[in-house]
Every structure is written in structure tokens, then in C-alpha cells.
């Protein structure tokens, strides 16, 4: 399949959090923060299961000029040629993130890190700090 044939086709896209289906729409293109780096999904993408890291999902919806930006705290992407589903534990539109609250959370976590006793709890806190950092990047970008 030639690339220019597929670029304008749409495919169905679902963004699902444990509590509800956050988004379900035909999309032209989706950019996903994969564990091994960002990747774009167009119609006709090969079947792929990927681990996702915290970051922003860009969804280009047919008929909208700017892509929708949604922050996820990590999850999984299930891609087939005509469908893309993202399972994310938390999914928030970037516009709804609150920079000040994230700063406060980061400060709290930094404090927790100094208090953490064993390696296991330290690793957990570091993971949460990474999520908050990604959140902050999403707001500032």
C-alpha cells in the first residue's frame, strides 16, 4: 500500500480509561508516546501492541484543524490496520491539567523521596515523579 493512498483515510480510534470510554472517534492520525519512543499511527498501520510511557497523545480528528491533546499516565496501545485503541489508567485533556497542582505534587514527592527508607518504595516514588514530570512537560509544551 502506497503511503499517499492511506494518509487521508481515517480509522477508528478509542481512548479508554478504567472508568469510562474517554474518546471514540474516527481519526486521521494519532501520535502515541510509546515506551521506545513516540510513534505515529495512520490507517493501515501494521498490527502492534505497545507499552506506553506517560506523555501526550495527539489525535487528529477529521474536520478539526488542531490535534486534540490528551495526557496519559502510561498504558497500552492496541493497533490494527483499521483500529487503534489505547488503554490508559488516567487520561486527561491537556487543557485541563493544572500546572500549580503538579508543582505542588512534585514538591510533595521530592519530600517523600528523602524520607523513603528502602529501594522498593524509592523506586515507586521515582516512577510517580516521572509521571508528574511528564505531566508538567505536557502543560508547558
Amino acid at each position: 500500500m502506497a503511503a499517499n493512498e492511506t494518509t487521508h483515510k481515517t480509522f477508528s480510534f478509542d481512548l479508554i480509561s478504567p472508568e469510562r470510554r474517554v474518546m471514540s472517534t474516527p481519526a486521521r492520525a494519532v501520535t502515541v508516546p510509546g515506551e521506545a519512543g513516540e510513534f505515529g499511527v495512520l490507517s493501515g498501520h501494521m498490527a502492534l501492541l505497545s507499552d506506553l510511557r506517560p506523555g501526550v497523545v495527539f489525535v487528529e480528528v477529521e474536520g478539526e484543524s488542531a490535534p486534540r491533546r490528551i495526557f496519559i499516565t502510561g498504558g497500552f496501545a492496541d493497533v490494527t490496520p483499521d483500529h487503534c485503541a489505547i488503554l490508559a489508567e488516567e487520561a486527561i485533556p491537556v487543557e485541563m491539567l493544572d500546572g500549580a497542582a503538579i508543582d505542588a505534587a512534585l514538591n510533595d514527592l521530592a519530600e517523600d523521596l528523602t524520607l523513603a527508607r528502602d529501594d522498593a518504595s524509592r523506586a515507586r516514588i521515582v516512577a510517580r515523579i516521572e509521571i508528574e514530570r511528564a505531566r508538567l512537560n505536557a502543560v508547558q509544551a
Partner: protein
Amino acid sequence: MPSLKEYRNRIASVKSTRKITSAMKMVAASKLKKAQGAAEAAQPYARGMAEMMARVAAGVTLGPSSPRLLIGTGSEQRHLLVVMTADRGLCGGFNGNVVRLARQTVRSLQAQGREVKIICAGRKARDLLRRDFGSLIVRSFTDLSGKDGVGFTQAAQISDEVLTRFEDGEFDVCTLVSNRFYGVLKQVPEAARLIPFSLPAANDPASGKDSAGIPVVYDFEPDRETILAALLPRNISTQIYRALLDSAAGEQAARMTAMDNATRNAGDMINRLSIQYNRARQAFITRELIEIISGAEAV
């Protein structure tokens, strides 16, 4: 025989009880609707998770290096029971049934010489199990369903606790005891094993089909094993979340049924008391008449 005034007071008190139970039934009905909505909204994620597990599992061969969440620790000696109930009572046998199953499970495990620990999710689990197994309870979660119902955060809290303890090597097997919601009139307490998790039977090795029904061969990024290792803990929180939602809906359904019965019983009682009251009043009138007549005759 009680006096007329006592009857009147009894009737008034049963009437106000009936008012309360019928109000509780109405509240439970509306909360049930909300809880069912939440359970339905959580379906796509649970399904997506199950599908993904099936796809990943299809090509995984279990070996000694497989995730321990899947193959276990090689022992079945130490058990962790997560017992999930409601925070409140007045919902028929809802809490009692779960706790009874939990008690049986603990006793039979202990009879086999196993070590048992308990995590309570829900105030009633803690209150009811504390007397018999107080020393086994390692952690209790209460107030799990706030004003907006159960959220995934609560499920994540519980699964974090379970996973941390598993990583620390505190137990070998984890079982979740909770009510399954089969319908408004049917909630059944069930025990489900969370760790080690048994993968869904991979009957479709091609794992997944596209819209035309053609099997799709998946690529894995970074690789199958890594994804499996990342999926397993999330699958546990998904299972717990589903159980929490089921339990929340079941609680309201059970309360609705219980309050419906209570309202009906109160109605019956009022009828019975009214009849007794009327009889007593009639007897009182008759007696007064007799007294007046015999008084008049005596003059």
C-alpha cells in the same frame, strides 16, 4: 392487655419506621442505577484488558523466568485473602454472605496447615472478621465508595497494597472474596484467585481479527515478555476495580430488596396493630356502655 394509648404509640412508631425504610429503598434504587452505570462504563477497559492479555498470552511459553504474578512463587503455603464488603449495613445478607465465605475459606486453609493473612476492603468486613481473625488482618480499607461512587483510585490503592506485599514476599497466593452482581435479586459471594493469575485460554493463536475477519499477526513493542510483565499488575487492579463496582452495585441492590421487604413488613404490622387497636377500643366502649346501663338499672 396494652392500653389504647400504647397501641396508638406503637402504630405511630411503626409508621415512621415504614417511612424511613421506604425512603431508604428509593435512595438505594437511585444509587443502584448510578452504580450500574459506572459498572457499564468500566466494561470497555476490562474487555480491552482481557483481549490484550489473551493476545499476549497466546505466544508466551511459561518458564522459570516468567513473571511471578503468573507462575507463582512455587509454593502455596502462605495465602492472602482480600475480603470485600460494603461499608454500611442494612442490606440484608449482603455482607454476611461474603464474610461467611471468607470465614469458611480461612478455616479450611488453616485446617490444611496454611498461613493466612487478610486484607479487608469495606468497613463491615473489618468489623465482622475482627472478632474471629483479628490477628490475621494486616490492613483495612474503609470508605471506599465516596460521594461519587467507587473510583479507580481506590482499586489502585488496594492493588498497590497487594502488589507491594507480594514483591516483599509476604504471601504466595492471593484470593479475592467478594459479591458478584448477577442481577438486582441475585448477588453471589465468590472467591477469585488473583495471584498467581491464570491466563485466559488462548484458543485463537492468531490472536485477534480485523474487521474483515482476517487474522492479524501482532508485533510487540518492546517485546511480548515486557508487555506481559507490565500488563499483569494492571490486570490485577482492573480485576479489583471490577469487583469494587460489582460490590457497589450489589450492595445497593441488596439494600433495595431488604428495604422493600422491611416496608412491606411494616405495612403488615400496621394492619395487624390497627385491628388489635380497633378491637380494644370497641371492647372499651362496650364495657363503658355496660357500666352505664347497669348503673342506670341500679338506680
